[in-house]
């Protein structure tokens, strides 16, 4: 079981009384706006939850794992997530094993 956009929309419907269409739109736009900011090269800081950061990676040598052929991994920008203190401390004590 995993939390999905549909679950989040259902939550907004139940808690805020948004109709299903509105709830689905808000959830979709929420993630789209974060993507757009990251696309612009902007860090996204969601206090209490965490930060989405960007890191630039230089070109490095790589290999096709199937053929063993050498192909460079080109320079790229990647997204990383740094959980905030509040989220970290909430998650830390989770005692189960489901990941």
């Amino acid at each position, binding site marked *: 079981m995993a939390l999905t956009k549909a679950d989040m929309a259902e939550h907004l419907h139940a*808690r*805020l009384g948004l109709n299903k269409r509105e709830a689905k739109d808000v959830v979709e736009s*929420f993630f789209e706006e974060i993507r757009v900011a990251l696309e612009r090269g902007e860090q996204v800081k969601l206090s209490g939850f965490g930060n989405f950061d960007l890191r630039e990676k230089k070109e490095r040598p790589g290999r096709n794992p199937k053929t063993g052929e050498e192909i460079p991994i080109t320079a790229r920008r990647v997204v990383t997530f740094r959980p905030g203190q509040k989220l*970290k401390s909430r998650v830390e004590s989770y005692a189960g094993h489901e990941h």
Partner: protein
Amino acid sequence: MMKSELIEALTEQQTHLADKDVELAVRLILERMSDALAEGERIEVRGFGSFSLHYRPARVGRNPKTGEAVSLDGKHVPHFKPGKELRDRVNAAYLASLERAEAA
């Protein structure tokens, strides 16, 4: 972009919703996500990415001030894996900006 700016961008788009509702919606989405992770539940958002927990085993650490050894319990930490659409869009925009810089 801060949370307040994300809320602002959403209120401009969701003109049929009260600003207050948009603000609450953002808070509810983030709370729902935090609650899921706190219960060990994964989050899967297609085109954006997935969040899960990674386990860090118990270890002996040191108090950086005194150098004293302290045993640290095992713990879970949140982990995010960007989805394909997010990876591709962020990288395509970056490569385009590099090309523009080179051409200038």
